[in-house]
């Protein structure tokens, strides 16, 4: 589904990702872990097409298409979803109106009919249960005045509603209490199917107790330096990231 080859990305002329490689197949959940500053968020933002992240080399193929040649909105319409680490506030625009516009623009791009307000509302109410939020949530302006946990749950709600093919969660688990973490994990597990894939970018092993990954990658200094099964996450939790740094240093 997603093939990242030798991807290099710079921010303000500073190279962050260095020839990164990653293969994600349909039906898989990948955890991308790593210490602060290793380039995890850069990978997430670059895949979503944030204009501040300049791709300086490499290719990314998504469902056979050249992802890097697509605009951010076209990537979204093709099923790429990014759950933001720091969700953005849009004052005065209700969650419901925002989601209705997003749903219908994505549907239009796929040649589907628009959903009317009633259909959208029904869909939203269904998905609200998943994130354990009540209806008043829909009338509140997008992320404005939301607590940290509410913002993250709102990202999961959006994800559930937009039903992406490739979901990238950028540290959605950080800063959550255990209840909110379970809700987020539930949202991710609810999305899991054989025809889509999930990339969980995370600093901690904690969420992986609830969402079982197929592969765990360690990102360090802009490269994936280690990939293994879910057991790697436990090892990282136990030993921290320093031994990885030492391993990389000894190879250099």
């Amino acid at each position, binding site marked *: 589904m997603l093939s990242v080859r030798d991807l290099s990305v710079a921010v303000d002329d500073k190279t962050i990702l260095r020839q990164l490689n990653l293969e994600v197949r349909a039906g898989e959940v990948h955890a991308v872990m790593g210490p602060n500053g290793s380039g995890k968020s850069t990978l997430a933002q670059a895949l979503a097409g944030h*204009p501040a992240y300049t791709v300086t080399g490499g290719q990314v193929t998504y469902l056979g298409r050249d992802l890097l040649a697509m605009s951010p909105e076209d990537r979204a319409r093709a099923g790429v979803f990014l759950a933001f680490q720091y969700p953005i506030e*849009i004052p005065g*625009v209700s969650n419901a109106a925002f989601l209705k516009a*997003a749903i219908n623009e*994505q549907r239009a791009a796929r040649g589907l009919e628009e959903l009317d307000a009633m259909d959208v509302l029904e869909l939203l109410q269904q998905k609200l249960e998943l994130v354990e939020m009540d209806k008043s949530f829909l009338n509140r302006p997008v992320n404005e005045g939301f607590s940290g946990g509410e913002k993250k749950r709102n990202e999961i709600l959006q994800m559930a509603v937009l039903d992406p093919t490739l979901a990238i969660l950028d540290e959605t688990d950080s800063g959550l209490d255990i209840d909110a973490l379970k809700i987020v994990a539930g949202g991710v597990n609810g999305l899991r199917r054989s025809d889509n894939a999930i990339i969980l970018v995370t600093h901690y092993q904690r969420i992986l107790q609830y969402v079982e990954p197929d592969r765990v990658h360690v990102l360090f200094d802009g490269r994936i330096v280690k990939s293994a099964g879910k057991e790697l996450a436990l090892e990282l939790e136990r030993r921290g990231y320093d031994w990885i740094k030492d391993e990389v240093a000894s190879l250099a």
Partner: protein
Amino acid sequence: MTTSAKTLEALATRDYKWGFVSDIEADTLPPGLNEDVIRQISAKKAEPEFMLQWRLRAYRHWSKLERAAGEPKWANVTYPPIDYQKIVYYSAPKRQGEGPANLDEVDPKLLETFEKLGIPLAERKRLAGVAVDAVFDSVSVATTFKEKLAELGIIFCSFSEAVQNHPELVQKYLGSVVPYTDNFYAALNSAVFTDGSFCYIPKGVRCPMELSTYFRINAAGSGQFERTLIVAEPGSYVSYLEGCTAPMRDENQLHAAVVELVAHEGAQIKYSTVQNWYAGDSEGRGGIFNFVTKRGKCAGRAARISWTQVETGSAITWKYPSVILQGDDSIGEFYSVALTANRQQADTGTKMLHIGKNTRSTIISKGISAGRGNNTYRGLVRISPRATNARNYTQCDSLLLGDRCGAHTFPYIEVGNASSIAEHEASTSKISDEQLFYCKQRGLSGDNAVSMIINGFCKEVFKNLPMEFAVEATKLLGVSLEGSIG
């Protein structure tokens, strides 16, 4: 190129779909202004003597102002001097014979023009729940639902008709809120105004439908000087809307209107404007100079006047819809969205003059600047010594798109007693690249993202507009900012 830079490039190309010209034969006076022109206007309208005398007094006052200092220079706008002798002060669609007795006799081309503007006047297509007075150049061409309103004692007609049929009301209220001595443009308007709308709601009557006037400038080289007068007797209610468009032309055209509202005890007047005069092109050529005086008087106790305006058009907007809070416990409100794109300039705001006790006023102003637009809020809150326990809340928010536009705020607050409270809040923000990216990441196009963010910004104002207008205003902002980001 950054998003902001693209904003500027793309904004230059916005379309104005109301810019067509109708080919309609007009009865036009030659350009120029003198006492003779005033006499001719008054004669053409077969006005009673008091009107002519009032116009002449206004003209003499205006001439004095013109000789002394000319037009006011304090506004934060720049434009070349206006030659008042080159303006046509009267232009009316030519009438066959006696003029239309009903809609069937109105020139089909006129009906077609309004149809094209989305204002159907023909009986079978009328807008449900909205009575419309259509003003084309200098005269009112049709008023709908007149008979139905008359059953309730409501008078809704063109100003000319009011002068003929209700001269006592006109004489009583004309200039009672905006005297001709008020300012340069009010004096000019009082001298030469040709038509407009008149509305009278009797005691205790709640007007069952929205009253609306649609203004259209068509003739070249002409100014539009209309006058609106609304009188709400004790305990009555009316919601009034006005809309306006003009053809695209390379020269500037002057629009100097006066609106007077009188709300007696316990009466409420809601006045909404969606102003979409032609704004000029990206280089600042053409467009309407919109120099307008609007004021309402809460004459009795617990009267209430609300101004809601969405100003998206005009090359220059100079307008301060105000409320004189004379009656105790009366309420004045001003909700405004002003958009300036390309080279548009707006100096707009309000005056809340608290005279009565326990009077309250609210001012919510949202300024949006894009391109090389320049947006100024200018507002006065004056609480007189005897207006004890008066309250004012003012909120001025500016949104900037791009880095070549400007936003300015000039609040004047004068509180004359110790028991009153005036609050002022202001903010300036930009649409951030992060907001745009967030919206795009959910699949929204750049245009839709900008329009959604702007509508969110304007929400507090839009929610005060009647439903039909809220939809139109939302669309209008969308159209005005189409292509504002790359």
